């Protein structure tokens, strides 16, 4: 089965609102990375977590390695937050191989 289950697959937000994305993992995960892919296809690093939470501006991410999930919260969404968000998991036994979720297409509207 898929190692990384990402939800929702698509999300529409009005400017100024907040929402959350989630990834569930089916195997023990050493670390998780979150990326945003822009319209040109570039993957922009948002967070790298081996545990706990990190915050960067209006974005906040958490990783619970025991319960096997990670979340990404977007606060006060802005138009430039639009894009496809991916989580990627490094399994304990994977030797740094990343397994990506299917992505969440986020559209922020005025």
């Amino acid at each position: 089965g898929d190692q990384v289950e990402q939800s929702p697959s698509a999300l529409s937000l009005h400017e100024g609102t907040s929402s959350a994305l989630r990834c569930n993992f089916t195997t023990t995960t050493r670390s998780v990375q979150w990326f945003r892919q822009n319209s040109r296809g570039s993957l922009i690093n948002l967070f790298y977590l081996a545990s706990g939470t990190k915050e960067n501006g209006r974005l906040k991410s958490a990783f619970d390695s025991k319960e096997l999930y990670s979340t990404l919260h977007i606060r006060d969404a802005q138009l430039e937050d639009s894009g496809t968000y991916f989580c990627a998991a490094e399994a304990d036994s994977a030797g740094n191989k990343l397994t990506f979720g299917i992505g969440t297409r986020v559209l922020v509207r005025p």
Partner: protein
Amino acid sequence: EAGVTQSPRYAVLQEGQAVSFWCDPISGHDTLYWYQQPRDQGPQLLVYFRDEAVIDNSQLPSDRFSAVRPKGTNSTLKIQSAKQGDTATYLCASSFGLGGAEQFFGPGTRLTVL
């Protein structure tokens, strides 16, 4: 600090043609990865190297795909006899160290096979 660079940015081929993609990782990064990202999917690992050694190429279609990193710096991914199913974006990434190291991605090469 320069990021991961890739070339070309785009390639369009007829089935049966060959193509090579080139990647220059972040300076000092010893681990280099090649991913394939079909349209509307997440990237999928093809092969990765530590220095010049292949660590895992189990997902690389060995009959038509090959990858090298001869001096442990730049890398080339080659597709012999491309098929329409190879249409995808090919992403290169690099990191420092194996296990628990953050990966950084290049802009990708968008390949279309007609």
